[in-house]
């Protein structure tokens, strides 16, 4: 299997991405804030040979409104910190990549940097980070360090200006995080008794970042982690976020509605890479899909013994409250139907898909038990677990280059 084989990610969010998911018999809404729930989900994904999970998070509660909290009582509200969920499951998993979402707006890049580096240590090289930018005024009010201008919704020009600034700030924050990940060279720790030095001080560097929004000196307090540069991901739907991804991410999660849109998005991402003057590896482009899969047993018309069809389940869930609406394409069908869509996307040039289970306690096991085998049968996925030891390896990304500051050490030494 080559290094550009199909990759599969699963996006974890509460009871699932359908607003009524928590009401299904299999759902565990009382367990959403317990460790075992998350361990069970991630282990199910890992056993199914999913390459990575992302974990949703935000500085505000889930909402049916775009930019503000709501007053619904019929949907899951409340989350645990995603970086800590990932940290909790790291020691009891061994292969799967762990990519928690963490907001860069309002937060300290110094803290984010060491948090993800530490996850990389505790997971032995399986850490990533999904960068989130927050435009919600209520999140700003939670932290209380700045106020957003009033906007009337996503079409208000003031919103566009705010978004551009927030994404510029985000690019700076990710730059700081990456530099801090490099601030210790891999071999900075020398434990040299002869010269009584634990560290080679020349191999630990200030990053001296000075930007429009903030400055950070460094170095990090945390040594260079197993991957050196953990994997950075971003969700993007439009030019401004594509540009952030092109400037700073390894993976971009996109939301193509159909095959034509999928081609357009790929072009937009490549254009963003040019605008950003991106060096090195091209962005890996993933297609997000909300998936609901037929219950096992097969369809009666196919000779199976029944089991609820996904389209029926979707209709039933939609009727319970707020229907499922998503930025991503919603696919409800058999494993074969979903596999067709995934295969088509891969053929178009998508590295992989990030699957958002409609009801995680039903659809994640079905992804593992039905969808992945269907993709294996088509030769798109290996039959056996990938032997890569890090998330970078699992995704076919090269091992991280040595710290960017290592060159300066050599330069100084030879000057």
């Amino acid at each position, binding site marked *: 299997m080559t290094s550009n084989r199909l990759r599969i990610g699963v996006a974890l969010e509460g009871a699932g991405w359908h607003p009524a998911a*928590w009401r299904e018999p299999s*759902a565990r*809404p*009382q367990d959403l*804030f317990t*460790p075992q729930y*998350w*361990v069970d989900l991630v282990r199910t994904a890992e056993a199914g040979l999913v390459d990575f999970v992302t974990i949703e998070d*935000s500085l*505000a*509660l889930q909402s049916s409104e775009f930019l503000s*909290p709501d007053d*619904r*009582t*019929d*949907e*899951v*509200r*409340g*989350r*645990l*910190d995603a*970086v*800590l*969920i990932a*940290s*909790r499951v*790291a*020691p009891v998993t061994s292969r799967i990549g762990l990519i928690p979402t963490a907001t860069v707006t*309002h937060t*300290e*890049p*110094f*803290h984010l940097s060491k*948090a993800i*580096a530490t996850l990389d*240590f*505790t997971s032995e090289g399986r850490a990533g980070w999904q960068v989130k930018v927050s435009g919600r005024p209520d*999140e700003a*009010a*939670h*932290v*209380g360090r700045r106020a957003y201008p009033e906007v009337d919704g996503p079409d208000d020009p003031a919103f566009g200006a705010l978004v551009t600034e927030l994404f510029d700030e985000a690019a700076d924050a990710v730059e700081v995080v990456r530099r801090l990940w490099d601030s*210790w060279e891999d071999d900075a720790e020398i*434990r040299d*008794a002869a010269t*009584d*030095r*634990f*560290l080679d001080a020349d191999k630990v560097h200030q990053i001296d970042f000075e930007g429009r*929004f*903030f400055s*950070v*000196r*460094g*170095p990090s*307090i*945390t*040594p260079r982690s197993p991957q050196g540069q953990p994997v950075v991901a971003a969700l993007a739907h439009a030019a401004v976020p594509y540009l952030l991804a092109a400037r700073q991410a390894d993976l971009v999660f996109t939301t193509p509605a159909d095959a034509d849109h999928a081609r357009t998005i790929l072009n937009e991402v490549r254009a963003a890479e040019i605008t950003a003057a991106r060096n090195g590896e091209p962005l890996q482009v993933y297609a997000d899909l909300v998936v609901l899969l037929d219950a096992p047993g097969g369809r009666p018309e196919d000779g199976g013994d029944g089991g609820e069809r996904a389209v029926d389940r979707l209709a039933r869930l939609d009727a319970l*409250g707020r229907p499922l609406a998503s930025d991503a394409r919603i696919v409800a069908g058999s494993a074969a139907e979903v596999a067709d869509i995934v295969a088509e996307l891969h053929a178009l040039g998508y590295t992989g898909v990030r699957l958002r289970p409609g009801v995680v306690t039903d659809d994640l096991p079905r992804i593992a038990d039905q969808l992945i085998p269907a993709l294996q049968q088509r030769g798109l996925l290996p039959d056996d677990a990938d032997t890569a030891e890090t998330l970078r390896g699992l995704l076919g990304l090269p091992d991280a280059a040595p710290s960017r500051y290592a060159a300066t050490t050599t330069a100084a030494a030879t000057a």
Partner: protein
Amino acid sequence: MTSTPRKQIILAAYVGGVNEHTAWEHPDAGSQIAFSTFRHVAQTAERGRFDYFFLAEGLALRARDGRIFDHDIAGRPDTLPVLAALAAVTEHIGLVGTLNATFNEPYELARQIASLDHLSGGRAGWNVVTSFDAFTGANFRRGGFLPHADRYVRAEETVATIRELWDAWAQDAIVADKASGQFLREADAGAFAHHGSQFDTEGRFTVPRSPQGRPVIVQAGVSPQGRDFAASTADAIFSPYSTLAEGQAFYADIKERAARFGRGPDEIKILPSAGFVLGDTHAEAEEKARHIKEQQLSDKTIRVTFEQVWNRDLSGFDLDGPVPGIDPDPEAPTFIQGRAFIFQDRFQTVRSWRELADERGLTFRGLAHAVAREANYVGTPAQVADQLDAFVQQDGADGVVIGSHVVPSGIDEFVDRVVPLLQERGSLRTEYSGTTLRDNLGLPVPVRAAADAELAGACA
């Protein structure tokens, strides 16, 4: 006839992170950063029925004269992620981490610590520290903005705000009735508002009430302001006093202050840190302790310790010569950065050191040996158990926080040889009886303050 159960000794195990005491040259020295190190200490401590595992924190690397200080161990994990990982490999032991109140926002700290509490089944604790220096501040967007005198004001309001956030969700806020479709009991679950001099925040908290209600809060504080802060808000307080008389005085003082704040003596626990050296005979233990101290007092360590107090470059002074005659220079740029400054008054400190050196005819190096921190418990396991038990039974403290110069395996010996002796005499549990850190420490579960009630404290 009923008997009063013996006062139980609280034990905590810490991995100190960056310090000058850890013997990295020791043949058994392990990694400072690999997860296996933290797992070893936490699991060993749990085997020893310790109350909690504890991590220190420092938000900038140590520097000397503007250059990274290369001698001391360095490299820390991020506090909460490593504690969350330890929650996966332990079951009962508390998980207490140091987090800085100056360079974190209350909303973030509150949700992260509450999340750890959920993810550990109620074992989270927070050691509140403050800092104010521009050196550390240069790592943060806000910079080193806080005048020294204001650090307690911010810290008090940080803790008060975080407690309001921890109380924001009612215990029964989540109904999760699949049949009726009601997930939340109230549409405004998690609502909060805090408008104070330090923080102006409002909205809805994202984390439901955690198993402990309020995670455990630990503080250190020696000054009167620090003691009041701790006595009014902390569940456990670090004591700097290891001798019985000083320990008893501090103990009595803190418990009395707590009473003035309406808190019972069992609601606040007092713990000094302690080092130990075990031997098969007392003489053997003493010899080991001497050897450890020699290892720890390298030339570089001696110089840096003095340079921090003098605030000068002292490399020109021969360590085997007399104590330098010059005065400290507090006005000069800070020579040693990133190390906690534990002395109250550098001129007074230098004065008393000179007196000591004169009295005993000490060289500069000799002075370093004379004033260096020593292990408190040196002897056979039985002697150490006796001494520790007596210290606690006589209210020198409620327990101790112990570490070792050998990371991670140094604590093994204490657990293998001293803990059974403490258990035999009934001063230490043989099994955990509860599930949370509050259970371990014997602390009451706090009553949730009403959402619209004003909490006492410096919130004006």
